[in-house]
């Protein structure tokens, strides 16, 4: 069990009042709050070690280079990557996916090649492929959802075939909570030598993701969804695949020898990091990893499961609530709607109680189309959430129903 009360003390934002109430933050799937340890790691870097990396011969520059590269090592260790050379720092998960879609896709896709995605992808794992498909003539194929909001894999034998050149899919859905059997899908794709990218944005913060065990070829996640700062994310790629990719962006830091008419690029991962990187961001991410490790991934996973289960049980007691996504074995979030009340209105009323939930399509409009709703309310949990938080949510939902009593 997590000592949530103690953990909450590290997050100073919970000292704030929202319209006179305690903040009940249930939108961690969008972005998490930051512990003081992360905030201070960033401040301390700026106060003591700030300099540009990789090219200075003076003390500060040496220190900041070391801190930046140590952050890369700690990110590598966090997902059990073989080497830190397979870790590229990006702005966020989205940039990691765009990097691969461009640097791999534009290089290796031809007309009528197939890219396999799923119906539950976040826009970040859909639009980049639409753009690349348009440029190369490749076609998008989809694994569709079954009635439970899980992937319908009955047709996988047909979906993955000689035409398939790439598979990219989400590990844990941010709108349904579904946990996908990515390991099986990777195995299957590898039978055809097809590289697979995993969007682990919602899984890495909550569960131990081991890239060697999964044997995924690429994997992305965002720092800001795991207690880290905004503006930093990670692209993991197998070294031999990253080596085979041309650079995505050009500029300083990513080159060896430059002439007006040609240039020789640096080795991976630096080849993919053009310009001054988000140094403080990487250092903040590394502090977040340390914080997560100090709590323990297993504890975090258990805690998320318990809260989610409790929330679902309590929600089910309320009349007129529809819950979306699989019943069992799901990520630490729950999406739902109250009959006849728009999610936006639910969110506004909950805010009066200090409860922050997301109302919207959660950047997964195809899932909304599938659910046949314009939007949903989503409550998502992390280490600082308690069972009382869920109780306040439930109270707020009951109040919402009262406000809309005439309509309901």
């Amino acid at each position, binding site marked *: 069990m997590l000592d949530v009360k103690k953990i909450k003390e590290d997050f100073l934002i919970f000292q704030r009042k929202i319209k006179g109430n305690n903040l009940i933050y249930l939108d961690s799937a969008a972005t998490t709050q930051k512990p003081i340890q992360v905030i201070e790691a960033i401040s301390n870097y700026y106060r003591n070690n700030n300099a540009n990396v990789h090219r200075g011969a003076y003390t500060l520059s040496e220190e900041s280079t070391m801190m930046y590269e140590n952050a890369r090592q700690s990110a590598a260790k966090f997902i059990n990557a073989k080497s830190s050379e397979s870790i590229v720092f990006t702005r966020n998960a989205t940039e990691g996916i765009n990097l691969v879609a461009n640097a791999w896709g534009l290089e290796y896709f031809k007309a009528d090649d197939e890219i396999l995605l799923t119906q539950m992808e976040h826009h970040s794992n859909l639009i980049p492929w639409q753009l690349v498909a348009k440029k190369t003539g490749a076609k998008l194929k989809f694994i569709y959802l079954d009635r439970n909001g899980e992937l319908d894999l009955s047709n996988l034998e047909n979906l993955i075939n000689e035409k398939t050149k790439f598979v990219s899919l989400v590990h844990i859905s941010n709108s349904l909570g579904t946990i996908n059997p990515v390991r099986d899908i990777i195995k299957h794709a590898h039978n055809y030598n097809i590289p697979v990218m995993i969007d682990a944005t919602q899984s890495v913060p909550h569960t131990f993701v081991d890239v060697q065990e999964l044997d995924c070829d690429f994997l992305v996640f965002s720092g800001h969804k795991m207690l880290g700062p905004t503006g930093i994310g990670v692209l993991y790629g197998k070294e031999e695949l990253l080596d085979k990719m041309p650079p995505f962006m050009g500029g300083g830091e990513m080159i060896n020898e430059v002439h007006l008419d040609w240039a020789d690029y640096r080795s991976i991962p630096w080849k993919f990091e053009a310009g001054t990187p988000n140094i403080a961001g990487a250092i903040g991410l590394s502090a977040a990893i340390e914080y997560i490790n100090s709590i323990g991934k297993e504890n975090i996973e258990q805690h998320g499961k318990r809260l989610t289960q409790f929330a679902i049980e309590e929600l089910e007691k309320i009349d007129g609530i529809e819950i979306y996504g699989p019943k069992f074995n799901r990520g630490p979030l729950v999406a739902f709607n109250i009959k006849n009340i728009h999610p936006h209105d639910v969110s506004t009323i909950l805010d*009066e109680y200090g409860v922050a939930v997301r109302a919207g*399509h959660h950047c997964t409009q195809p899932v909304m189309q599938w659910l046949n709703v*314009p939007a949903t309310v989503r409550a998502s949990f992390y280490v600082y959430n308690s069972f009382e938080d869920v109780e306040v949510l439930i109270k707020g939902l009951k109040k919402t129903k009262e406000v809309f009593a005439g309509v309901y």
Partner: protein
Amino acid sequence: MSIEDLYSEIVLEHYKEPHNVGEIQSPEIFAKGFNESCGDDIKIFARVKDNKIEDIKFLGKGCAISQSSASMMTDLLKGKSINEVKEFIKAFNKKITGEENFPEDSDEWFELSALKGVIKFPIRVKCASLAWHTLAQGIRDYENKLIRRNNEQL
């Protein structure tokens, strides 16, 4: 300021049974609107005759604020001249953003002032004005079309 001021009885009644919902075939004025911040959309149709809004309807899914606002708007603007409508939209925008007060003793504004509570919820202003912005866009398109047609006839 409490949540009941935002969700007043008038707002909720319009939300429950919005007026003027539907389509108009080959309307003179048509526009689609989109609320980037929540993903809601709306379509507005209007029939113009003798430079007046003879009929006006809307379609779309949305929250209580956007639905009731569209419902009241269509009620109010029916029968007005295009110029009156344009002025009214301007006036509404000023009031809903708090730049001007809602008039206290105007019959015309009586129902609309039920939206007053929105001013205290800046993020919801977009919901309240979605229908109005969309109609304004439709009128601009309509007038541009008229100008083009006139030019072609010259």
